[in-house]
Structures are given as structure tokens and as C-alpha cells.
């Protein structure tokens, strides 16, 4: 099972619509995603947007200020990583 339509853009997570303040790129990405509703005519259609990440300077990092709880946990319990990769969630107490 997949998604009905996918507009794929080669930008980092947190910046999928483009660099901060770059309204032109942000509008372009959103417009491409919107027009896919009319362009796609079968499930699973993928549209690859022809945009390269411009590597803007001075932008906020995607990573949070502290590691996510699961990252912290797995660093302390490395044997659990294999379960995480299989999404085998232990029973909660």
C-alpha cells in the first residue's frame, strides 16, 4: 500500500518547501504539489520536482537541541536497535 500521489522534492526534512523566506521556491513547490491533483490519474503517481537544494547559509538545523528520547534510549541500550529497526515495540508498563 502506498500514497495516492507524491510530489517528491530533494530538500531536507524541515525545509521541504524551500529555504526560509524564499517565497518563490515555496510557491513553486506547493503549486507543483497542488497541480498533481489534476495531473495524476492513477494511484501511486510520483512527480519528481526538478529543484536542487541551494544550500543557504545560516539556517536553523533540523536536529532538536537535545536528542529525541528514543535516540537517548537506544544509545544506552544498543541491543534494542535491532528491534527499533523492525518496529518491534516492547510492551509498555
Amino acid at each position, binding site marked *: *500500500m*502506498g*500514497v*495516492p500521489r507524491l510530489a*517528491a*522534492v*530533494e*530538500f*531536507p*526534512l*524541515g*525545509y*521541504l*518547501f*524551500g*529555504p*526560509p*523566506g524564499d*517565497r518563490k521556491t*515555496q*510557491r513553486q*513547490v*506547493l*503549486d507543483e*504539489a*497542488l*497541480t498533481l*491533483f*489534476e495531473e495524476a*490519474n*492513477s*494511484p*501511486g503517481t510520483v512527480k*519528481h*520536482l*526538478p*529543484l*536542487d*537544494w541551494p544550500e543557504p547559509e545560516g*539556517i*536553523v*538545523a*533540523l*536536529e*532538536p*537541541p537535545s536528542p*529525541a*528520547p*528514543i*535516540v*537517548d*534510549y537506544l544509545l544506552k541500550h544498543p541491543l534494542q536497535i535491532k528491534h*527499533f*529497526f*523492525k*518496529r518491534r*515495540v*516492547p510492551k*509498555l508498563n
Partner: protein
Amino acid sequence: MEKQKTVDSYKFLDVLTRRMAKSWQKLPGEPGSTAWTALKKPLADSTVALISSAGLALKSDVPFDQEGEKEHPWWGDPSFRVIPKNAAAEEIALYHLHINPGLVDQDINTLFPIDILRDAEEKGLIKNAAARHYSYMGYLLQPQEMLDTSVREMVKIMKADQVDAAILVPG
């Protein structure tokens, strides 16, 4: 001529996240075919909603449960929040513990194009940005509760708002 490009979905992921993503993609998925509903009217006559998995909420609303995830790192909050169409960026906070909340302060439209969608409405590409947008917590190793509760409720609200299409934005 527009250049052809095949997007590398893993380009900006670190080694561990890349391994995780590839491993999860190989897991057996839900049986059944890909959902599909054709748009029933021209895009220019359509109302469009945004759905973000970045754990966004109005600062005036109940935050997503960060303490629950800190206590149980394998758990994620299955609830959702409504973001009104005209909410200003400074009214919105990001509670996803795997993402820098500073992204919202910098420019929320990089991950939740709320202003850009209003631009699309103004220039007539769509009829309306939906009165209400949505956000949920993307960190859900076991998403069934979210699917059974939050998604059902989001669909009800979207029907009430006469939403024709929704864009799911990963965060």
C-alpha cells in the same frame, strides 16, 4: 527544456536514519491496494487542507504530550490538533521532539505552507484554503490508535469544512 530529475529521498539523511528508513520500508505493509479518489472538480474550484506530521499546535491549545514520550521513548502521542487557516506563525508551536522547534520561529512555511496556501487561493489556483488545517505527531511506531481515533475525527471535520483535497506534509 525543464531538466529531468529523479529525487534521492535519502540525500539529506544521516547514516543511521537512512538505515532506519530503508529497514522500515522493507517491513510488510498493510494489505490492500493504494487508496485513490480522483479530484471530483477542477482544482480552481477546490478547497484544500494541510496535514502536518510535525506535531504543530496553537500555543493556546493543549501541547502534544512530550513528557509521555520522554517517559516511554517507544511511544508517541496519537492525538491531533487543528490549526485555523489564518493562524499567524507566532501563534503556532512545534512539539515534535525529533525536530528543532526553532524551525517554526525561522519560517513556518518551510515545513507547513500555511501562508503559501493562502497565496494559492489569492491567485485562483485553488478556490479556498480550508478553514481548518491539521497536525499530528509523526513519531508513532504503532499508529493504529491515531488511525482509529484522530484520523476519523479529522475526516469528520474536513467533511464539515467541505474539503476536497488534503496535502500531507512530512515533518
